[in-house]
């Protein structure tokens, strides 16, 4: 009888089972307040089984919350890419530009989104009702930008001199060199940056929502913590993880399409 290879399914399930077991053990022994897996399932049923329901502002199906978060991430991520990619190109093309701005970038890069958000709210306090959205977008953009900037710069610097010589011999104009040689040549590096930026953007949105109380996965998580319904915290964590995983997969599929030699 031929053995059907189900390693790819069985082994990850084994891993999940081990984690759930650990969870159950922790809930029954040292972490008395931690809800057990079963309790979590029971309390989350409404949210999971009716993922698109809207019962109240902060009482919606889990996929609706996810959708709100994704919309905000999309906007912030787009801003991050639109600012980050040209910045990366300038850094890669000009050594002087690098010397001027590299220290600033290195200083801004390690700052946590939790530190940027209050600044973002202060900056946009004049926008009234939109302040929290603009603040969140500002935070996502400024935190998610850096991998794109740095990877694009590396990609531009790594372009072989040969391609540039070809562009010179063919007398390509500056814009043609940019669009026909520079961008396609650094696309693989740019996509690595895009992928890392997306991961950071998703991370930041959760923090931003928690601090501003916007409806979304993060907002729901913080609200349920305050309402002492701890099961939903775990539901949110699992959701955040799964969505992040999915986004990364989608990005790496896009990356593969654009991988050129």
């Amino acid at each position: 009888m031929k053995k059907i290879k189900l390693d790819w399914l069985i082994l990850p399930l084994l891993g999940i089972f081990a984690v759930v077991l650990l969870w159950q053990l922790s809930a029954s022994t040292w972490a008395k307040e931690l809800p057990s897996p079963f309790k979590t399932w029971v309390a989350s049923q409404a949210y999971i089984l009716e993922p698109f329901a809207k019962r109240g502002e902060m009482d919606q199906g889990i996929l609706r919350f996810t959708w709100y978060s994704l919309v905000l991430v999309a906007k912030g991520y787009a801003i991050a890419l639109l600012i980050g990619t040209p910045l990366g190109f300038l850094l890669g093309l000009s050594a002087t530009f690098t010397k001027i701005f590299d220290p600033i970038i290195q200083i801004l890069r390690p700052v946590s989104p939790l530190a940027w958000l209050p600044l973002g709210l202060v900056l946009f306090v004049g926008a009234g009702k939109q302040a929290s959205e603009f603040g969140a977008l500002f935070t996502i953009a400024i935190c998610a930008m850096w991998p794109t900037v740095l990877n694009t710069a590396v990609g531009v610097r790594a372009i072989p001199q040969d391609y540039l010589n070809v562009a010179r011999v063919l007398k390509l104009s500056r814009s043609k060199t940019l669009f026909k040689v520079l961008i396609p040549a650094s696309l693989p590096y740019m996509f690595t940056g895009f992928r890392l930026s997306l991961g950071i953007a998703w991370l930041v949105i959760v923090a931003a929502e928690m601090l501003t109380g916007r409806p979304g996965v993060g907002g729901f998580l913080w609200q349920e913590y305050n309402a002492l319904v701890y099961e939903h915290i775990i539901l949110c964590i699992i959701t955040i993880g799964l969505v992040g995983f999915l986004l990364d997969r989608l990005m790496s599929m896009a990356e593969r399409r654009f991988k050129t030699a």
Partner: protein
Amino acid sequence: MAFLEINHVTKSYGANQVLRDINLSIEKGEFVAIVGYSGAGKTTLISLIAGLLRPDTGSLTLNDLEITEPGPDRGVVFQNYSLLPWLTVYENILLAVEQVSPNWSSAKKQQHVEEHIELVNLGPARNKRPSELSGGMRQRVSLARALAMNPQILLLDEPLSALDALTRATLQTEIERIWEQDRKTVVLITNDVDEGILLADRIIPLSAGPGATLGPSIAIDIPRPRDRKALNHEPRYQKIRRQVIDFLLGDGGRKHTVVARKLILPDIEPEDLSAPHSFGGRKRKPIRRGEVKTEPVEVDV
């Protein structure tokens, strides 16, 4: 005034002088081969002619116009093919055609590209990317691209160096065949003397670096088409070959001199394996006796 004139050109990179007093005149329609060591400055010379570099002293003129920057009138075939890997063969050549003749109709451009693809026998590979091609095929595309630009002079920078010997032979024949059709002016840089004699009208050795300079220009009066196998028995071929190699290995070669050096020779006697191991003891170490000798030794200058 010759078609291509190089007068007293010197080029240094920082403190290293790569080329020293280069003088060369090439007539229109000539095929000139320059042979030399690796690292002697051959690519530097081609880059100067192409306009990718500017000389420190001296001048280069093409058709009485000074060469100041690169352009499609000097078609270059690089050693590393330099095909854009995200474009197909067709698109790579089309890029060159569009730059040189932007005013042509797209049908005319297409026909021009197709002609050149056929010229290098790559019809079936038209829509392939460079990563799907072998080294020899990539070099043909590079050649087709250079020819599609309709250059005044074709510069081949060690085009076949990165290929295996068998593919080299095939492509040498291809280059000769293609050149016969158009009789463009060609400067071929190569490290293979035989390749130079097979393809060129004149062969000029480039001495070894640093401060490389061109040796005597040797005319090759063997009639075309030249058969590689018959060439081996051709006395003129042997004579030219000997002249070039004499220059490269002799005056134009790496400079040697003979100095007398004091050498201290260690006079080692073999270990005595029958003696027992001793950790820390001195029993099994080899015995050395210092000896001083004076020997004449050849060193590179």
